[in-house]
């Protein structure tokens, strides 16, 4: 049972540790920089000089607190878009890569169903998601306390807890790309590009007044800035993301079951 999850997770261990370390390093830098930036830069005055649409798009008016600063400098971009795209990219590379190299042949020749191969491969992606969460949470938690501007522990915990359904959804999207795209590179491009594209769609559609268009973007249902600056926990959004994850995974499994592996 779950041999493939174990194997996949083991395969990802080094990469996941490096990823978590890198993200933690960036989080530490931002946390340590925050007091200096907040003390020296008058964000409100800066915001007045910039076009209102720009200020709104990047939530600059919230930058005045350490929560807002970290939300924008860390969570809104590197975390939400960067890690989201990376997770989707990694997921897309899994089966597509194994099919392309022929590595999957030995596995598919075993008495294991394709659905199971897909599900267990997918579950292996939880490792980077969880490690990144633990590392960044611990860094921000400790870092804000170190600089003497502690961030609310519950908000921080929630921002990380709610990121799990979000990343799961990105990974599920990547899996769908992995089994449906013709080749690994295409799958990876579609997956990473899809996440970045969804983010742009969500941002632009809101600015342009077509916010319904952004409903397909997973970022719509996970708002780290809202959690950190206003303690708004979008639990329904998390539910939608989990639902979407299941739908995407079921779709991937159906596709993978029928597709020719050659």
């Amino acid at each position, binding site marked *: 049972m779950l041999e493939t999850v174990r194997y996949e997770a083991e395969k990802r261990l080094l990469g996941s540790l490096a990823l978590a370390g890198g993200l933690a390093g960036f989080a530490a830098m931002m946390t340590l920089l925050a007091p200096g930036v907040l003390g020296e830069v008058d964000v409100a005055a800066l915001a007045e000089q910039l076009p209102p649409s720009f200020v709104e798009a990047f939530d600059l008016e919230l930058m005045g607190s350490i929560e807002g600063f970290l939300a924008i400098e860390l969570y809104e971009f590197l975390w939400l878009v960067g890690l989201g795209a990376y997770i989707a990219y990694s997921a897309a590379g899994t089966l597509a890569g194994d099919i392309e190299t022929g*590595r999957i042949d*030995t596995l*598919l*020749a075993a*008495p*294991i169903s394709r659905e199971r191969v897909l599900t267990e491969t997918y579950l292996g992606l939880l490792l980077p998601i969880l490690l990144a969460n633990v590392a960044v949470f611990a860094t921000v938690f400790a870092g804000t306390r170190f600089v003497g501007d502690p961030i609310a522990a519950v908000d921080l915990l929630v921002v990380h807890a709610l990121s799990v359904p979000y990343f799961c959804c990105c990974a599920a999207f990547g899996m769908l790309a992995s089994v449906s795209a013709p080749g690994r590179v295409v799958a990876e491009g579609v997956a990473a590009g899809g996440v970045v594209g969804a983010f742009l769609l969500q941002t632009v559609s809101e600015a342009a007044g077509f916010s319904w268009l952004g409903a397909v973007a997973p970022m719509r249902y996970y708002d780290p800035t809202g959690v950190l600056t206003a303690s708004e926990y979008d639990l329904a959004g998390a539910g939608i993301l989990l639902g979407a994850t299941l739908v995407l995974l079921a779709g991937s499994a159906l596709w993978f*079951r029928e597709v020719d592996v050659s």
Partner: protein
Amino acid sequence: MATIRTDNLTKYYGDVRGVEDLSFSVEAGEVFGFLGPNGAGKTTAIRTLLGFQSPTSGSATVLGADVTDAAALRDARARVGYLPSEPAFDDRMTGRRLLSYHGALRGDVRSDELLDMFHPPLDRPVGDYSRGNRQMLAIVLAFMHDPDLLIMDEPTSGLDPLKQETFLEFVRTEREQGTTFFFSSHVLSEVRKVCDRVGIIRDGRLVEVASVDSLLHRSGKHVRLTLGDSVDGNAFDLPGVHDVTVGGGARREPSDRGDDVTTVSFTYTGAYEPLLRRVLEHDLRDLSIEEAPLEDVFMRFYDEAAEEAAPQQSVDGDAADGEAEDA
């Protein structure tokens, strides 16, 4: 019940023909060689049998499981070992880890014994393996759960001659234990050594299914005569004589009467007696009758130009056992 049976099995990739109308069966306990030049469709057939891809039309069963029934085939695969032609593994994993992973998936009852014969460096990452080591690891993975049926795609490719011999010997031993083998190859010597029957595939179609013995029999003997009298090609126009070549005098040592000799060689598929009677009408100096190399038989099937010659060959040869070709 046949271990593998295909009925008009056809696989197209879009408009490109992989295999077409394959019908054959592999009986329990036999070693069936699947032969053909590169690109003939051997791998396509194997991948379809394993359920990696679904047939465009026709059907096939493996150990009684329909290849289009994913659940049945999954259960059947517990008793199937598969040796791919270019085994690929995660480069960073060690052989030992792959062994434990695949052992957990399909059960490991004999990897220790197998590792005595085939010994890849288990503690090194597979990325450092040579082609031969990779193949040996794949062999261990294919046999570790002691399957009833082995499906192998060019199994000896990448092995050095010594290991090839070990492997073929191993196949023979396994066959004696009742294991069934279906393997593709274009190495005729190994086919000759281990196969009971062969199917020959060309351009996606099965052109022949026959026992190795019958193929050899049908391919006839290479007859080579050295005659003291001069003859022309018509001197041996017996039924069953093919491809007569009459050579000029071979230079022999002085003691050999010094006069002209003629060499005649041909392929002969008939009985000995009429041949020998005809030969004795001549001044016979030397005679050799050898089994024709299996290569000649296959070349006939592979070679487009020889296509017309094949039917006339099979008339005077014995009827093949097994199914007739439907090409």
